[in-house]
């Protein structure tokens, strides 16, 4: 298992893509990618909660088959964007397409083609890993005769076969996360969306999860969209990243290109500091609470 993508891998994924690392004004975020190649596209996407504008005219393009990282301070609007993409929250304005399908008008079809891993540890602790996967297989309409094979495959891929018949409340945080990725990919989705997939995990568990995501992408051209606060993760895993502040895309491009805009020795942390505006009143109590709850359940 390689913990890091080889530099060549990275080059391959991004060489044909125009680099856009400058501060993007709203409406100019689109890169020149042919429509068929785009797995996720938002145009002027906006979501308000009362007076608060959580997502503000966001234009995202995620290339099919790539791993895209959404970065940004607490309360920037990452989870809200994801909720819209996975059809759980209607946008106030603008449109979003996932796998070429409109998330409002074709919500049911979108759900067939996406897998989602939430910011919380949401596998059912009272069920075994196998039972959790069985539930997902049934909800995704996998035919009865295929279920067992699919579940066994998913367990093997996520290296959970030995723990399959243990109750999930006895799993470690890393195992729960891998189980959730297995659940979210049991129907072989075109797009996999993960909200802070490695929060609270130890370095080894974290790398295992990275490897699972790379594996999913490499083998099946699955597009992966994830959010993270971990710049090392974004750098190591993502083909492209988008930095969101106050619901707007402040910068986007390959990690290498973004670092270049700051200086020759800059890290993604520097990029985050430069564009992320962390001095702002970002995360509300609600965000912190949600994050902490995840950490506790993992603890």
């Amino acid at each position, binding site marked *: *298992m390689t913990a890091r993508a080889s530099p060549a891998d990275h080059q391959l994924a991004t060489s044909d893509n125009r680099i856009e690392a400058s501060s993007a004004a709203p409406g100019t975020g689109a890169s020149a990618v042919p429509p068929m190649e785009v*797995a996720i596209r938002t145009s002027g996407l906006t979501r308000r909660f009362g007076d608060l504008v959580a997502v503000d005219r966001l234009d995202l393009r995620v290339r*099919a088959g790539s791993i895209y990282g959404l970065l940004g301070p607490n309360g920037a609007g990452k989870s809200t964007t994801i*909720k819209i993409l*996975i*059809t*759980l*929250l209607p946008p106030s304005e603008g449109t979003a397409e996932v*796998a*070429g399908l409109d998330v409002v008008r074709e919500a*049911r*079809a979108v*759900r*067939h*083609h*996406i897998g*989602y891993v*939430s*910011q*919380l*540890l*949401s596998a*059912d602790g*009272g*069920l075994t890993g196998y*039972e959790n996967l*069985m*539930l*997902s297989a*049934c*909800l*995704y*309409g*996998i*035919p009865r005769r295929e279920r067992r094979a*699919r579940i066994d*495959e*998913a367990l*093997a*891929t996520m*290296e959970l076969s030995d723990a399959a018949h243990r*109750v999930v409340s006895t799993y470690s945080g890393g195992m729960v996360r891998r189980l959730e990725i297995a*659940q979210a*990919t049991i*129907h*072989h989705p*075109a797009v996999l969306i993960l909200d802070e997939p490695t929060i609270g995990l130890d370095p080894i568990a974290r790398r295992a999860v990275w*490897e699972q995501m790379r*594996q*999913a992408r490499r*083998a*099946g*051209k*699955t597009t992966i969209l994830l959010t993270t606060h971990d710049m090392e993760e974004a750098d190591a895993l993502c083909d492209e990243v988008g930095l969101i502040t106050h619901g707007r895309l402040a910068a986007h491009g390959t990690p290498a290109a973004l670092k270049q805009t700051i200086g020759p020795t800059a890290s993604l942390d520097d990029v985050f500091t430069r564009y992320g505006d962390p001095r702002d009143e970002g995360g509300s109590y609600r965000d912190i609470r949600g994050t902490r*709850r995840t950490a506790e359940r993992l603890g």
Partner: protein
Amino acid sequence: MTSAALAERPNGLGKLTAPVTFAGAAWAIADAEARKLARDPTELISRAVQPALWLLVFGEVFTRLHAIPTGSLSYIAFMTPGVLAQSVLFSSIFYGIAIIWERDLGIVHKLLVSPAPRAALVTGKALAASIRGLVQGLIVALLAVMLGVPLRLDPRALLGTVVVVVLGSAVFSTFSLTIACLVKTRERFMGIGQVLTMPLFFASNAIYPIAVMPPWLRAIAWMNPLTYLVDALRTLMIAGGQSSTGLPIDFAVLIGTSVLLVIVAARLLPGIVR
């Protein structure tokens, strides 16, 4: 690390998985619930305490008092179906708080992101509530036998009782889900749950006949689905039990109310994660 499954994945927009069947999704949710209950039955056992108290204490005392006119039935026989209906009501009302809890854990998100029809998710929860209801039914029946209540044991009556308990559980669990989707927080739900369950219970024919009620209460009792649940159970469970409305009306009310509430809860369910 092999990944045959991932390798055969269709590119981008691949073939749709087989259409998600309504029954398959609903059944899967009920099945998961059954497994959890089997693994940890403590809750089922603690829930048996309340009906036992009602039957052994309240029932025994009032049977001796002859304070409530129950026709040809002894008071304990009269109230047995009422106590069962009450435990169905109380264990079903729990589903609202459970869905809020599951929302906070992210479990509801996962259900709603799947292509399973929302009404199937709600029906699954209703079936899960029925499992609890049936366990309560078994406990109440055993207590009733111990207390010498004359139960009907012919297959038609037994089957009818099972169906009625399932329908009753569906009515009150979907009612509870609907309330939970409207109020959204545990604190508010607790308040409202308390305010609703006791009036539902007392404004019904569970522990006294409608005939003894003042007219205003009678009017409410006839609008209360619990009344029809008790009436059907009284007719089907108890030897010599008389229906005051007729079984067809009981069934029509229970089926109609559960279908309506499944539709309403399915519409409201996505709102709980916004």
